[in-house]
């Protein structure tokens, strides 16, 4: 087996609250993401899954542990780990095409090459017709597709996604999930995505890392074997597979257990 693309070893994150109180948000989180894998970080709200993702992105610093990408230590944010956020991040002063070209402009890629790559990735997310539009003219789903194209056009080693479809309506959401799978297939991109949506996790993931909370730590590392090691272009096909319902139920129980802990902690 090849070496992992991304590796987290005993990552911890503590926050200082007040002068002498510290809380441990993340406790010894370890997992690996393989090349070309879609790995989904799933867990109840407040488990710190977004914090883990932000640490991988280099936007936050772990208090302990080690993280490597392709064997190299992660030091800070970098273009090898492009991120798509839940909030819309299309730069409103740039057209769709200029948005997609943005990362390449930072890298001083020559204009013709930039335009060519932007066209390619706009095609991939079905937005070629909107290349000259401004973000204010786009719907939420389209804005997220711009963000995905912009990140991929920058040729990252990994695509990080923080609840990318969380703000979208249900229908747009599953279209986007299917689009994400076909893009992952076509571009051979390694993806680490955060979600709290169990269905989304099971449908899209090659591997699910389930985090429990207080402090956030890995409670389960699940490979949904019932998907037979392949990716399914249509969501309903996965929902129909033997084993889907069982996995969904198991994960719900994990979530519920967390919720009960929470209720007990309050009571």
């Amino acid at each position: 087996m090849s070496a992992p693309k991304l590796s987290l070893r005993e990552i911890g994150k503590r926050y200082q609250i007040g002068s002498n109180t510290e809380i441990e948000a993340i406790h010894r989180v370890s997992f690996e993401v393989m090349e070309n894998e879609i790995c989904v970080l799933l867990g109840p709200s407040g488990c710190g899954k977004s914090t883990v993702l932000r640490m991988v992105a280099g936007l936050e610093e772990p208090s302990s542990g080690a993280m490597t990408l392709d064997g190299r230590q992660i030091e800070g944010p970098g273009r090898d780990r492009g991120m798509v956020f839940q909030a819309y991040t299309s730069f409103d002063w740039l057209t769709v095409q200029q948005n997609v070209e943005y990362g390449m402009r930072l890298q001083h890629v020559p204009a013709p090459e930039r335009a060519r790559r932007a066209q390619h990735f706009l095609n991939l997310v079905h937005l070629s017709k909107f290349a000259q539009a401004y973000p204010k003219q786009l719907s939420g789903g389209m804005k997220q597709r711009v963000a995905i194209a912009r990140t991929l056009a920058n040729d990252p080693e990994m695509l990080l996604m923080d609840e990318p479809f969380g703000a979208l309506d249900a229908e747009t959401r599953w279209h986007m999930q299917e689009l994400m799978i076909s893009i992952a297939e076509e571009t051979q991109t390694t993806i680490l995505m955060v979600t709290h949506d169990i269905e989304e996790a099971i449908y899209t993931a090659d591997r699910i890392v389930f985090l429990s909370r207080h402090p956030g730590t890995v409670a389960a590392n699940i490979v949904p074997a019932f998907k037979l090691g392949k990716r399914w272009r249509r969501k309903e096909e996965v929902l129909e597979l033997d084993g889907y319902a069982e996995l969904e139920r198991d994960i719900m129980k994990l979530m519920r257990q967390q919720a009960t802990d929470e209720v007990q902690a309050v009571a």
Partner: protein
Amino acid sequence: MQYQSPLTPRAKRWLEIRKPISRRTTIILGVSLWAAFFIIWEAAVKAGFVTELLMPSPTRVLSTLAGLLSTPDFLMDIGASMLRIAISFLMACIVAVPLGIAMGTFRVLEAFFNPFMAAWRYLPAPSFIPVLLMWFGTGEGPKLALLFIGVVFFLITLVMDYTKQVRQEFVETSMTLGGNRKQILWTVIVPAVLPNVVVAMRQMMAVSWTYLVIAEIVASTNGIGAMMMRARRFLHTDEIMAGIVVIGVLGLLCDMAFRWLHRLMFPYVEESAR
């Protein structure tokens, strides 16, 4: 199938909570108070309720204004006032915009400058007039200095606040696309805050006009404010009022120019954010 005519139409009332009204009604309502104001004013003068010397009629003010606008002296006064605004405002912007953006971007600069700037903001600019007169004499110096002081500290704060409002996700997106500090400043923060910098300028322009009149009334030989003080000496109330009208109209034109500029420069900004 036959449709019945509607049941009883709903009763129409004038005051409906947040219900939209037609454009025609909006215009009629907007104009009517102004019309009433002028009619009552005119009637009060005609009926002799007020002394015409102290309170000339609106028609009289308008005819005086028309007369004034055809004299080179008055046009020079208007020119002098506008030049003062332009020069002092430009100087204030040159200082405030880069400093405000820098303070809104780097916490270290905010911590260093803001306590200083905040204190100056609470000192009324006109209170500096006596010392400004002592330092700069009676030329253009004290006027420009007053206008500059009156605008610059507020403009710095406004620009800083707008810069801090630039969304963190924009900055972080650029970071994960490989942007370095310089690139993030110039390709994210500056373009993101620019529309609001123009909004801040528009807001401060109104303040600038206020200080202009104060400066010219206190110590000046030319400008619209000086003209009004001269007119007072000869009891030319109509000229004073004509001056007020001119200042009001110029202020309004300035505001409209900035709005137009905003639309022209930033067509991509959501209408609700203007």
